[in-house]
């Protein structure tokens, strides 16, 4: 069931009524039933996948938590008669017991994810990639997102940073909570555990804010992302190079921003309407001044997951610390950073593979990694540059940095669009030898599948998106700011937004409003 379907609106409307009308004691059970109903709309055949993750997550977390409790009790009881070394050895033996089942759970679950991504049909795969035909059923709904969320919880319990939930149905709700199934955000247990299971009373303002956010998500997805998608399909045609490729990268930036942030707005808005606040996944990423900053502001929940559970464990592991010592002896301060580079490389490779088993995703990850590492190493040079030249600290230079980041990120992101990496680089280099400025005025733009009216709607929509981002730069959302203006004006604005979604949303033949790009990951 797509977020942008009539079916979903009916489903959500019924849920909100039941959620607030039924006794508060069973509110979370209503959510669990709704989440499984939502999941099963995607197909009964996927049920085994989510049940396996839920059951293994629940069992291993309880097992490890029991061990931790036994360990605390034992150490408390023998506090006086154990030496420091004995305590260390005891803790180590308990950790080993945890580790066996912990690793088995992690390997089994990520093994399933790996299998699904490698063998089940993925719309972004190249046609030449092998696909097991009898399993051509598509990826189970939200498998990447609920898997990362569940395994994050398992790792937190293993580390002793979270206590295991004893009610298996509560774990089932955490794993399957439907707003995040489509494309995240990936929440931590600590962020959701209290919110999911405590009573929520109907609050007009909270519900209104949630609905406003959903409406804004619809606008970005249906009016902007799905409209510009048609031109992207045309621009990917083989004869386009130079300026056409440059336009393609910019159009794709608009599409993915509208699609992904719009989808997340809907997910967070759905949660907010139910009184549940999920973590933000974006902080105005296109206002970043460099690639590293961009990645701190784009798809935050995935990047935080990668940082906490892959980058940090790799870089501060025993072998890496030994390597740091050895490389410092040889290369001085520079050598100390060797684990950072190795950790970054592996994390970016992991992020690339998470997007799909295809060479272009690996190239995408490596390009990001190389630019971030080079920028980090050049940081002292940048500092000297800014200290020497006063003009580099002006607002105009900041704008230049933002535009530079936007263009650079667009060029890297365009790897998504080409299954053939050679084709991508051929087009990238055509920016140098065959820029084709003329496509801007020779009528090509009118042959991309967009009419003049489409362009006007797109430009207006992009300007509105820009203004909303710009006016929330102080971290206070535009919705909160709109509270300060007279109610009739505010209502008129939201009514106009609703009318825009109904009138200008892309529906019908040629538009695929049924799926979100990140749902395929």
């Amino acid at each position: 069931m797509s977020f942008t379907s009539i079916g979903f609106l009916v489903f959500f409307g019924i849920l909100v009524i039941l959620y607030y009308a039924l006794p508060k004691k069973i509110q979370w059970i209503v959510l669990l039933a709704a989440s499984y109903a939502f999941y099963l709309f995607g197909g009964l055949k996927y049920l085994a996948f989510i049940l396996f993750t839920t059951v293994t997550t629940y069992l291993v977390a309880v097992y490890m938590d029991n061990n931790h409790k036994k360990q605390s009790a034992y150490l408390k009881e023998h506090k006086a008669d154990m030496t420091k070394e004995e305590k260390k050895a005891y803790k180590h033996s308990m950790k080993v017991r945890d580790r066996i089942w912990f690793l088995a759970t992690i390997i089994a679950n990520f093994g399933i994810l790996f299998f699904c991504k490698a063998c089940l049909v993925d719309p972004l795969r190249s046609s030449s990639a092998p696909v097991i035909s009898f399993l051509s059923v598509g990826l189970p709904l939200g498998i990447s997102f609920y898997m990362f969320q569940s395994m994050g919880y398992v790792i937190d319990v293993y580390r002793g940073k979270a206590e295991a939930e004893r009610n298996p149905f509560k774990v089932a709700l955490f794993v399957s909570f439907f707003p995040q199934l489509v494309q995240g955000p990936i929440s931590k247990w600590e962020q959701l555990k209290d919110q999911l299971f405590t009573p929520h009373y109907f609050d007009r303002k909270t519900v209104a804010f949630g609905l406003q956010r959903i409406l804004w998500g619809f606008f970005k997805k249906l009016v902007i992302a799905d409209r510009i998608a048609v031109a992207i399909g045309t621009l990917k045609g083989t004869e386009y190079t130079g300026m056409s490729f440059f336009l393609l990268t910019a159009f794709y930036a608009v599409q993915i921003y509208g699609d992904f942030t719009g989808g997340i707005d809907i997910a967070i808005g759905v949660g907010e309407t139910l009184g549940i606040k999920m973590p933000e996944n974006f902080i105005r990423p296109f206002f970043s001044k460099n690639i590293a900053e961009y990645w701190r502001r784009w798809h935050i929940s995935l990047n935080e997951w990668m940082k906490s559970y892959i980058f940090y464990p790799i870089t501060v592991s025993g072998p890496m610390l030994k390597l740091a010592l050895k490389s410092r002896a040889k290369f001085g301060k520079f050598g100390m950073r060797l684990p950072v580079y190795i950790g970054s490389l592996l994390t970016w490779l992991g992020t690339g593979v998470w997007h799909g088993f295809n060479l272009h995703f690996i190239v995408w990850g490596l390009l990001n990694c190389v630019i971030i590492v080079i920028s980090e190493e050049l940081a002292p040079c940048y500092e000297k540059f800014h200290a020497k030249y006063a003009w580099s600290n002006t607002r105009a230079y900041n704008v230049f940095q933002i535009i530079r980041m936007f263009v650079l990120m667009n060029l890297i992101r365009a790897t998504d669009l080409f299954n053939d990496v050679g084709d991508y680089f051929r087009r990238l280099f055509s920016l140098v030898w065959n820029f084709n400025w003329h496509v801007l005025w020779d009528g090509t733009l009118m042959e991309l599948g967009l009419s003049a009216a489409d362009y006007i709607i797109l430009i207006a929509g992009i300007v509105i998106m820009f203004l909303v981002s710009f006016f929330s730069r102080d971290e206070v959302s535009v919705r909160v700011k709109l509270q300060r203006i007279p109610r009739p004006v505010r209502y008129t604005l939201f009514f106009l937004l609703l009318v825009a979604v109904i009138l200008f949303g892309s529906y019908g033949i040629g538009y695929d409003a049924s799926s979100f790009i990140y749902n395929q990951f």
Partner: protein
Amino acid sequence: MEKLLEILEGLHPEVDFEIADDLIDAKIFDSFDIVTLVAEINAEFDVAIPAEELIPENFNSAEAIWELIQRLDEE
């Protein structure tokens, strides 16, 4: 503590670590800095800081980092 301050100043000479208490919250330290710092601490104090301890509360100030080192050393 003096050794720790030396390491921190080596990473960010522009920061006054005696008073700074928002190294993570104010984005003075990024993940690269933290990992480099962990390697330096391991080399200097022979204390391994595990991944689960890499949370903002432990790295927001020199004092918090020092407390972390002492706690892990005692464990």
